[in-house]
C-alpha cells in the first residue's frame, strides 16, 4: 500500500500579501513594463509637442526618445547630454561643409567621409556615452549635411530644425524618466559594488584555501575586469543623476583603483599558492596552513558576516600574521631548504601586500555603502591620505592603434561605396540610403561583434517595414486627430519598447523602434497615404542595411587576423612598458592598461577557444611578470637624492634601461639586421644587484620585442645569473631589499615556462568558458546598442 502524497498546501497568507505569482511577476518583469510605459508615454508626449510646435518632421523627436530611453534616469540624462553634444557639433560641421563645398559633390562627399571616419576612430578610444557622442557628431553631419547640400538655401533651417527636434526628444525623455516612477542608478551602483566585494572575498578564500586552477582563474579574472568596468560606467551615469551620487563620485573612483591593485596582487598570490601546493613544498604548506586557515574561515564563512565585520576580522588577521611571521620563521628554520624558505617568505610578502591593499579597498567600499562614515573628521583625514592622484583613478580606454583605424576605414569605405552608387545611378533615394548606412555603420563600429548587431537590427528593420505598411494603409486612414493617432500608434510603440527591454532582442527592438517611427509617423505637412513613397523608403532601408551587413562581414570582420595579431602584440608591448618606462606611477598605468587589453582580447568574437585560451594565458603571464619586473626595478632603482624629497621637486624619472625598444618596425628583411641589442648575457658574475636585475629586465624586453627561442634562453639565463648572484650574497649585500629581490626573482622563475617564443604553441588546455558578455546585466546590454 502506498502512502498517498499530496502537494504541499500553499502557505496561508494574510490579505495584504500578494500571491507568489504576482510577486514573481513583480520581481522579474515589472521593471520591463515600467520601461515600456515610460517609453510610450515619452514618445507620445514628444509627438504631441512636436505637432503642437509645428516642427517639420515630428518623427525625429519620437526616434530620439526611442534612442535615448533607458531604464535608469541617470543613463537617460547622460545619453541625452552626449547626444545633444554630438548633434550640436555635427550640425555645425555640416553647415561648414555645405558652406565650403556645396557646389562640388565629390569634394563634399570626400570631406564628409573624412569627418565621419575621423570621429568613428575617436569613438573607439572612448567608452560608454562619450564614445556615442563621437559617433553622433559624425553621422549627424551626414543627416544634416546631405539634405542641406541638396538644398543649400535652406541649409541653416534644416540644421536648426533637426537640432530643435532632437532637443525636444531629449528633454521629454529626460523629464518623463525623471518624474514617472524614477529609478535611480545609485542603487544599481551599490548592488554592483556589493557583489564585487562578495565575489572578491569568495575568490580570495578559494585562493588561500587551495588556489584556483589556471583555467578557472582566467574566467574569474575576466569577470572581475568586466565588473570593475561596469562599476565605472554606473558611476559615470550616476554623476548625471543626483547630488548624492555626485558626492560619491570620487569614492567610487578610489575604490576601483584600490580594487584593481588588490586584484592584481591576488593574481600573483594565486600563482604562488598553486606552486606551493606541489608535493615538494609540503613542509611550507604545513607551516602555513594554521595561519591561512583563520583567513579562509573569515572569508568563506556561511552565512557571511556584514562587510564591516569581515573587514575588521581581516584587519585582526593581518595583525595576527605580523605577529606570527617571525615565530613560524624560527620554528621552521631547520626543516626547510633554501627554496622552501623562499616560498614561505614569498607567501608572507604577497599576503601582507594583498591584505594592505584589500583593507584600503574595504575602507573605500564601506565609505560608499554608508556615506555618513565619510562625514567624520577622522575618516576625511584618512581618505585624504589614501587619495590617489586623478590620473591614477581615471579609466582610459586603452586599445591598439589598429582598432580605431579599422573602424574608421570601414565607415569611410561604406560611405564612399554608397555615394559612388548614388552618384553614378542618380538614385532618387540615394541620400536616405547613404544616411542610414553611415549612421548604422558608425554606431556599430564600437560593438565587439558589429556583424551580428547589424543582423539583429536588420530583422528589426524588416519587421518595421511590414508593420509600417499595415499601420499606414489599414489603420492610419481611420484615425482622426492626435488622440486617434496616439491610440493607433500605442501598440506598435509598446512592441518596440518591449523588445528593447529584452536583452536578447535589444538590437531588433532598437531597429524596430527607430525605423517604424521613421516610416509610419506622418509629417506635419500632410503627405500621408503615399504608397509609392513608403515602398521606396522601405526598399531603400533594406538595401542600405543589406549592404551594411555585407560590409561588416567582408571588410575586416570582427575577430579578423589583423586585429587579433595586433591585440596580442599590444599586450606584448605592455611588457616593454613595464621594462622600460619611467617608474613614477608605472604600476597603476601598467595594470589599468593591461586589464583593458585583456578584456578586449577576450571579447574578440569568433575565435576558436584554443586560440582564445592561448592569448588569454599569454595575457595573464604578461600581467604577472610585468608586475614582478616593476617591483624589481623599484627595488634596484638608485636612491633618490635627499634634496629631491622636498615638496614641489620632481626627481628625474630613473631609467634602468634604454628607451622603449620599437616593436617590429620596418620590413622583415631589415628587421633581422637590426638585432644589434646585446642579447648575449655576459658569463662573468655581475658587479652589483642593479646590474644583475638590469640584465634580466633587458633580456625580457628583448624577448617581448621579438619572441624567439634564442631570446627566451637568454632571459632564462639572465634570471638564473641574477638568482645565483643573490643566492651567494657578498658581505655588504645584506640590505633588507636583497631578500625581497630574491623573492621576486623566485616568483618570476615560476613564470619562465610560460614565456613567448616557443617553437610550437603550448598544448591546448581544456577549453574554458569565455563568455564575458553573457553575464552583463540587462541595463548594460541595453545601452551597449545604440
Amino acid at each position, binding site marked *: 500500500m502506498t502512502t498517498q502524497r499530496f502537494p504541499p498546501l500553499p502557505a496561508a497568507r494574510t490579505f495584504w500579501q500578494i500571491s507568489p505569482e504576482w510577486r514573481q511577476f513583480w520581481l522579474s518583469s515589472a521593471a520591463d513594463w515600467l520601461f515600456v510605459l515610460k517609453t510610450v508615454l515619452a514618445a507620445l508626449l514628444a509627438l504631441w509637442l512636436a505637432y503642437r510646435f509645428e516642427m517639420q518632421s515630428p518623427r525625429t523627436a519620437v526616434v530620439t526618445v526611442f534612442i535615448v530611453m533607458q531604464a535608469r*534616469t541617470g543613463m537617460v540624462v547622460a545619453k541625452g547630454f552626449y547626444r545633444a553634444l554630438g548633434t550640436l557639433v555635427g550640425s555645425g560641421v555640416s553647415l561648414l561643409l555645405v558652406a565650403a563645398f556645396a557646389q562640388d559633390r565629390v569634394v563634399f562627399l570626400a570631406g564628409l567621409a573624412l569627418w565621419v571616419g575621423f570621429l568613428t576612430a575617436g569613438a573607439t578610444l572612448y567608452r560608454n556615452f562619450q564614445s556615442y557622442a563621437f559617433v553622433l557628431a559624425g553621422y549627424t553631419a551626414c543627416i544634416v549635411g546631405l539634405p542641406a547640400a541638396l538644398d543649400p538655401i535652406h541649409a*541653416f533651417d534644416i540644421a536648426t530644425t533637426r537640432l530643435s527636434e532632437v532637443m525636444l526628444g531629449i528633454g521629454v525623455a529626460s*523629464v518623463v524618466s*525623471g*518624474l514617472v516612477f*524614477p529609478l535611480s542608478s545609485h542603487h544599481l551602483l551599490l548592488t554592483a559594488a556589493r557583489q564585487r566585494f562578495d565575489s572578491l572575498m569568495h575568490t580570495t578564500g578559494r585562493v588561500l584555501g587551495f588556489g584556483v586552477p589556471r583555467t578557472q582563474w582566467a574566467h574569474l579574472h575576466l569577470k572581475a575586469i568586466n565588473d570593475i568596468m561596469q562599476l565605472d560606467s554606473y558611476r559615470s551615469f550616476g554623476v548625471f543623476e*543626483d*547630488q548624492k551620487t555626485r558626492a560619491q563620485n570620487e569614492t567610487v573612483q578610489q575604490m576601483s583603483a584600490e580594487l584593481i591593485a588588490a586584484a592584481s596582487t591576488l593574481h600573483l598570490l594565486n600563482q604562488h599558492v598553486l606552486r606551493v601546493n606541489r608535493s615538494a613544498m609540503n613542509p611550507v604548506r604545513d607551516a602555513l596552513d594554521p595561519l591561512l586557515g583563520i583567513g579562509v574561515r573569515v572569508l568563506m564563512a556561511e552565512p557571511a558576516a556584514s562587510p564591516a565585520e569581515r573587514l575588521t576580522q581581516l584587519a585582526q588577521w593581518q595583525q595576527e600574521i605580523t605577529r606570527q611571521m617571525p615565530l613560524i620563521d624560527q620554528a621552521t628554520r631547520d626543516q626547510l631548504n633554501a627554496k622552501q624558505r623562499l616560498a614561505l617568505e614569498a607567501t608572507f610578502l604577497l599576503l601582507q601586500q594583498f591584505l594592505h591593499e584589500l583593507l584600503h579597498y574595504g575602507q573605500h567600499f564601506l565609505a560608499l555603502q554608508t556615506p555618513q562614515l565619510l562625514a567624520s573628521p577622522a575618516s576625511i583625514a584618512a581618505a585624504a591620505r589614501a587619495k590617489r592622484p586623478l590620473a591614477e583613478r581615471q579609466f582610459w580606454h586603452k586599445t591598439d592603434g589598429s582598432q580605431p583605424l579599422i573602424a574608421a576605414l570601414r565607415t569611410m569605405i561604406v560611405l564612399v561605396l554608397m555615394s559612388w552608387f548614388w552618384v553614378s545611378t542618380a538614385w532618387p533615394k540615394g541620400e536616405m540610403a547613404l544616411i542610414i548606412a553611415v549612421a548604422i555603420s558608425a554606431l556599430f563600429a564600437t560593438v565587439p561583434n558589429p556583424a551580428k548587431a547589424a543582423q539583429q537590427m536588420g530583422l528589426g528593420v524588416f519587421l518595421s517595414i511590414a508593420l509600417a505598411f499595415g499601420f499606414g494603409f489599414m489603420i492610419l486612414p481611420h484615425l482622426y486627430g492626435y488622440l486617434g493617432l496616439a491610440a493607433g500608434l500605442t501598440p506598435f510603440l509598446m512592441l518596440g519598447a518591449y523588445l528593447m527591454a529584452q536583452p536578447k532582442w535589444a538590437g531588433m527592438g532598437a531597429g524596430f523602434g527607430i525605423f517604424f517611427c521613421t516610416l509610419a509617423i506622418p509629417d506635419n505637412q500632410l503627405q500621408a497615404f503615399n504608397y509609392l513613397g513608403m515602398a521606396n523608403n522601405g526598399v531603400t532601408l533594406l538595401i542600405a542595411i543589406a549592404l551594411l551587413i555585407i560590409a561588416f562581414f567582408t571588410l575586416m570582420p570582427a575577430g579578423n587576423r589583423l586585429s587579433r595579431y595586433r591585440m596580442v602584440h599590444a599586450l606584448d608591448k605592455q611588457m616593454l612598458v613595464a621594462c622600460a618606462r619611467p617608474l613614477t606611477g608605472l604600476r597603476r598605468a601598467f595594470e589599468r592598461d593591461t586589464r583593458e587589453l585583456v578584456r578586449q582580447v577576450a571579447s574578440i568574437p569568433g575565435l576558436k577557444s584554443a586560440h582564445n585560451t592561448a592569448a588569454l594565458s599569454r595575457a595573464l603571464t604578461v600581467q604577472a611578470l610585468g608586475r614582478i619586473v616593476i617591483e624589481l626595478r623599484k627595488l634596484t632603482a638608485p636612491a633618490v637624492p635627499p634634496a629631491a624629497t622636498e615638496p614641489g621637486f620632481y626627481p628625474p624619472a630613473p631609467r634602468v634601461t634604454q628607451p622603449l625598444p620599437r616593436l617590429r618596425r620596418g620590413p622583415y628583411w631589415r628587421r633581422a639586421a637590426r638585432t644589434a641589442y646585446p642579447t648575449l648575457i655576459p658569463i662573468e658574475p655581475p658587479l652589483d644587484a642593479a646590474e644583475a636585475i638590469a640584465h634580466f629586465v633587458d633580456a625580457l624586453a628583448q624577448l617581448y620585442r621579438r619572441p624567439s627561442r634564442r631570446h627566451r634562453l637568454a632571459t632564462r639565463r639572465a634570471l638564473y645569473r641574477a638568482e645565483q648572484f643573490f643566492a651567494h650574497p657578498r658581505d655588504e649585500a645584506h640590505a633588507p631589499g636583497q631578500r625581497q629581490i630574491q623573492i621576486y626573482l623566485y616568483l618570476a622563475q615560476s613564470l619562465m615556462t610560460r614565456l613567448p617564443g616557443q617553437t610550437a604553441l603550448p598544448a591546448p588546455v581544456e577549453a574554458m568558458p569565455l563568455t564575458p558578455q553573457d553575464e552583463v546585466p540587462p541595463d548594460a546590454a541595453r545601452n551597449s546598442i545604440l
Partner: protein
Amino acid sequence: MPREIPFFDALIPTILLILIVSAVLYFLVERLVQAVDLAAYVWHPALFRFAIFVILFSSLSLWWYS
C-alpha cells in the same frame, strides 16, 4: 518686446534666451535648495526640481511676452 533677436544676422527666438537665463537661475536656486537640504522634506525631489524650473521659466516668459 521683440520675439526674435538678431545675432550675427541669425534670428534667435527670445524664448531660447529666456530658457538659458532661467536655466542659470535654476542652478542658483538649486544650490540654495541643497544648502538647506530641502530635498529631504520633499516627497518627489525630481518633480520638485522640475516644478521650480517650470515656475521660473514660465514666469519669465509670461513677463516678457505680456
